[in-house]
C-alpha cells in the first residue's frame, strides 16, 4: 500500500541484527590497498551475493550538486574499455544473475545475485569498474533524463514522497541530510562530467570500499582470486571528513504541503543520536513497542480503536553515519482531521513519558528483535546488506554482534528516559500533507473520456 515506506525500511534495517549465535561466521580480510573484504560461507543453496559498498552518499555532496552520488551510480552502468556500455547487466544476466545498485544518504552499493560458481565474473567486473569507468557526455545527457523521470515518479507525482522530502529539508538546515538522495531538478541539470569524474576519483577507491560475498563459497579459495583482482587497484585519496554538523534544534518546526491528493498524511521527525550513543538501543526498542505488529501501541490506538489512521508507524535506524531522525507517520483516514491524528500520536508519546512500558511489552519487543535476527539470515542478500551498512556508516560489522546483547539489556526505565529526552516538542519537525481539490483540466480536454481519478 505504501511503497514509500517499503523503500525507507529496506535501507534502514531496523531489526536486522546478526548475533553471536549466527549459523556461520563472518571472516574479515584487509587487502594491501586498504580494501576491506567480508566473506560468509552459507552452504544451504548454490547461490551467492556479491556486493561492493562505497562510503559515499548524498551526505558527501555540496549545495548545488544534490543528487551527484545517485547520478554517478546510474553512470556506473555506462561501461569501461573492457566492458563497454550495456555489457555489464547483459553479461550478468546471461550468466543467470541479477545486478542492481542503490544509493542512500550514507552509501552507494552495487550487487550481483547469482549462482555461486559465477561469483568470479561479478568480482572481475566490479574490480574493472572501480578504476576504469568511462564518463561520456552523450550518456550523461540521456541518463539525466532517466533520473528526472525517476524523480517525477518518486516525488513530484507521489504526495507522500513529497512530504518525506520536505520533512528532511525542514529538519536539517545545514547538514546534507537536508536534500534528497535523488537531488533537485536544477542540480541535476547543472551537473557536469567534471563533477562526476571528481566524485568518482575521490570516493571510488578500494580504501573507501567494502567487498562482501555471502553464499555457497569457500573463503579460503575465493580470497586469492579477490586479491588478484582488487589488489592491483591503487589506493585512492583519503576522502576529507564531512565537517558540517547540524546545530541543535531549539523549538518546533512545522509546515504544510498542499497538493492534489486523496488522503492527508502526517509526519513528525525527532532528531536523535545514532549507534555512537548508548541511547540508540533504547530508541530501537521504543520504536518496536510503538510500531511493530498489530499489537503495537500506535496500531492499536490509532488504527484499531480510534480508526483515525489507515496506517501508522514509527521508523528509526541507528545505522546512520550522522545522527538521523526518529520519525512517525500516519495516513489519515478519509473524513478525519490530521490535527486529531497528530494529537493521538502525541498522546502515545506522552503515555510512554509518563509511565514506563510493561514488562510484557518490553519482552515482546526483545523477542521481535531476536526472531527477526534469525529470519534475516534466511537471505544472503539481506545478510550482506546488514554487513555493508554497518561498515559503510563506520559502525563496523563487529558492532552488529554487540547489538543484540545491548538490546537485551535495555530496561523499561531506559525507554521512558529516552522518550523524555528526545521526543520533545522543541526537538521535532511536523509536516502535514493537506489534500486540495485537483486543478480543472484545460478546456479543450474537459470533454475527454474520464475515469475516476
Amino acid at each position, binding site marked *: 500500500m505504501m511503497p514509500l515506506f517499503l523503500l525507507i525500511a529496506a535501507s534502514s534495517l531496523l531489526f536486522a541484527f546478526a548475533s553471536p549465535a549466527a549459523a556461520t561466521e563472518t571472516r574479515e580480510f584487509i587487502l594491501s590497498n586498504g580494501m576491506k573484504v567480508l566473506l560468509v560461507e552459507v552452504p544451504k543453496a548454490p547461490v551467492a551475493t556479491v556486493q561492493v559498498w562505497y562510503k559515499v552518499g548524498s551526505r558527501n555532496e555540496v549545495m548545488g550538486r544534490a543528487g551527484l552520488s545517485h547520478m554517478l551510480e546510474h553512470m556506473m552502468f555506462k561501461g569501461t574499455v573492457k566492458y563497454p556500455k550495456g555489457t555489464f547487466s547483459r553479461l550478468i544476466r546471461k550468466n543467470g544473475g541479477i545486478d542492481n545498485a542503490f544509493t542512500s544518504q550514507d552509501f552507494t552499493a552495487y550487487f550481483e545475485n547469482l549462482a555461486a560458481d559465477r561469483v568470479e565474473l561479478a568480482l572481475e567486473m566490479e574490480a574493472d569498474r572501480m578504476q576504469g569507468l568511462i564518463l561520456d557526455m552523450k550518456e550523461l545527457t540521456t541518463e539525466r533524463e*532517466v533520473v528526472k523521470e525517476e524523480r517525477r515518479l518518486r516525488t513530484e507525482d507521489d504526495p507522500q514522497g513529497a512530504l518525506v522530502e520536505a520533512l528532511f529539508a525542514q529538519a536539517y538546515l545545514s547538514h546534507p541530510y537536508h536534500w534528497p538522495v535523488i537531488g533537485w531538478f536544477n542540480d541535476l541539470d547543472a551537473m557536469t562530467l567534471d563533477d562526476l569524474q571528481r566524485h568518482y576519483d575521490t570516493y571510488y577507491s578500494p580504501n573507501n570500499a567494502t567487498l562482501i560475498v555471502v553464499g555457497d563459497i569457500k573463503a579460503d579459495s575465493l580470497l586469492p582470486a579477490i586479491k588478484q583482482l582488487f589488489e592491483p587497484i591503487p589506493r585512492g585519496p583519503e576522502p576529507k571528513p564531512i565537517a558540517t554538523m547540524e546545530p541543535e534544534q531549539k523549538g518546533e518546526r512545522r509546515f504544510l504541503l498542499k497538493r492534489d491528493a486523496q488522503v492527508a498524511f502526517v509526519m513528525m521527525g525527532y532528531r536523535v543520536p545514532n549507534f555512537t550513543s548508548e541511547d540508540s538501543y533504547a530508541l530501537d526498542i521504543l520504536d518496536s513497542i510503538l510500531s511493530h505488529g498489530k499489537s503495537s501501541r500506535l496500531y492499536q490506538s490509532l488504527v*484499531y480503536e480510534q480508526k483515525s489512521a489507515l496506517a501508522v508507524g514509527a521508523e528509526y535506524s541507528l545505522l546512520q553515519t550522522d545522527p538521523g531522525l526518529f520519525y512517525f507517520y500516519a495516513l489519515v483516514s478519509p473524513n478525519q482531521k490530521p490535527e486529531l491524528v497528530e494529537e493521538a500520536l502525541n498522546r502515545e508519546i506522552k503515555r510512554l513519558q509518563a509511565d514506563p512500558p510493561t514488562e510484557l511489552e518490553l519482552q515482546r519487543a526483545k523477542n521481535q528483535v531476536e526472531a527477526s535476527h534469525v529470519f534475516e539470515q534466511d537471505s544472503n542478500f539481506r545478510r550482506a546488506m546488514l554487513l555493508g551498512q554497518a561498515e559503510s556508516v563506520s559502525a563496523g560489522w563487529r558492532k552488529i554482534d554487540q547489538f543484540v546483547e545491548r538490546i537485551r539489556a535495555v530496561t523499561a526505565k531506559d525507554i521512558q528516559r529516552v522518550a523524555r529526552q528526545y521526543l520533545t516538542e522543541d526537538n521535532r519537525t511536523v509536516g502535514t500533507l493537506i489534500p486540495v481539490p485537483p486543478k480543472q483540466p484545460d478546456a479543450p480536454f474537459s470533454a475527454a473520456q474520464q475515469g475516476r481519478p
Partner: protein
Amino acid sequence: MPTARRRTILTLVMGCCALLWAAGPALAAEIAPTKFTTANGITVLVLEQHFLPIVEIHALIKAGSAQDPPEKAGLANLVASLLDEGTTTRTSKQLAEQIDFIGGTLEAKASEDFTTASIRVLKKDVDLGFTLLADMLQRPAFHKQEFDRIRTQLLGEMASDNDDPGHIAMKAFNQLVFHGHPYRWPVNGTEETISKISLADVQTFYGREYSPSHVILTIVGDVTLDQAAALVQAHFGSWKKIASTARSQKKPLPVERKTVQLIEKDLTQSTIVIGHGGLSRAHPDFYSVTVMNYILGAGGFSSRLMDSIRDKQGLAYGIMSHFDARLMPGSFWVNLQTKTETTNQAIAGVLAEIKSIRDQPVSDQELAEAKSFLVGSFPLRFDSTAKLAQVLAQVEFYGLGFEYFTQYPKWIDRVTKEDVQRVAKQYLDPQRYALVVVGNLAKAKVKR
C-alpha cells in the same frame, strides 16, 4: 531515510511478472517435497530445511476474487482480511499479541485465483504457529464490529490508492481487458461493490469455500516430516469436510478493437498501460511466451523495451512487459511512466517494439541470452523459506507437477526462434489493444 534506488524499484513497483513468482536461491534438484492428503481432504506438502531454526506454514485456499459474485466484488478479500480479526477463542488483539510476542509474522490475503494465510515462526514456536493458523482458518468469528471496521478500512485504502497513478491505470486497464469476466475487478473490489457486501455474504462465502479439500497446506523449514504430519493431524484433523462447489471455467473475451481510456490527473508524468489478453498458467505455450516476453520487456536491462525507451531515448525510469498467467487466461501489458510531453513518443516506441518482435525473428544471441538467464537464475527464485513455501503451493495449485523443479531448464531450453516468433504473432497484437493513460491530458495530447 529515503533511498534512491537505481533499478530495484523496477521489481518493487512492477513486481508482477510473467513468471508467477519473483527471483530468489535453492538447489533446483533438491526441491522434492513430500505430498500427502489427510483423511478430511487437505493436501499437505512438507519440505525439510534444517539450515536455520525457522518454520513457514503456508495455507493456500482455492478461492479468490474470481469466485466473487459480480455485484459483490471484494468478497474473497474481505473474508481473508477478517481471518486474523478474531476467532471464537481469541479476539483480534489477542491474536496480534500472541504472534507478536514470539516475533513471528502472520499474513492473510486474497488474490484472483486463491487466498493465502501464512505464518512464519522460530522452530521453538512451531506448535503455537499451527495453533494460531488453525484457529484462524477453522474458527473465524466474523464479529459485526470487526466486519464494519475492516470494510471502512478497505474503503479508506481505496481512496488512498487513488493517489497512485499506477494503481488507477491498472484498475482501468483490467476493466477494459477483462470485460464481463470476474478478473475485471480489483481484488479488494470497488467502493460500490464492497458497500453491498453484508456480514451474511462473508459467512456464506466462508462456509462454501473454506473447506479442508480446498486447502493446500505447505510446511517448509526446520521440522521433520513426522513432526509436520503430527502437527497437521493435531491441529487440522477435526476440520469438517464439506461438499465441493463447481468452479466457473469461463474464459475472458478478447479485446476486439483498439480501446483508449484517458484519465485526467494533475501530474508531471503520464502513466501508460498498453496490452490485451494473455494465456493461462498451464498452457503449453507458457514457456515459449516466457522466453519471448523476456526479450521484449521482462528482461530488465537486457530487454528491447528498456534498451529503446530508457537507454536510447531517456523517456522512462522503468518499463516492463508482463504476462500474468492465471488459472484462466490472464493478461499481457506494458507499463511505464514518462513526462507528459513525451507521452505519444513513448506509446509509439512500445507499439513499434511489439510489432518488431512479431515481424522479424529474434537474433540467435537474444534467444541464447534469454534462455541462459531463465535457466541460470532458476535457483535464485526460492531465496527464502517463505518464497519456497509459496512456490511449492503454486506448483501444486496450477498442477505443474513437482518435476517442474527438475524439468524447467529443459522446457526453456527447447524453445526455438520459430517458437518465439509464433507466440509473438499469436499472443501480441499491435492493433487490437487497450490503452490507458493517466496524467495531464491537455498537455499530453494522446493520439487516439
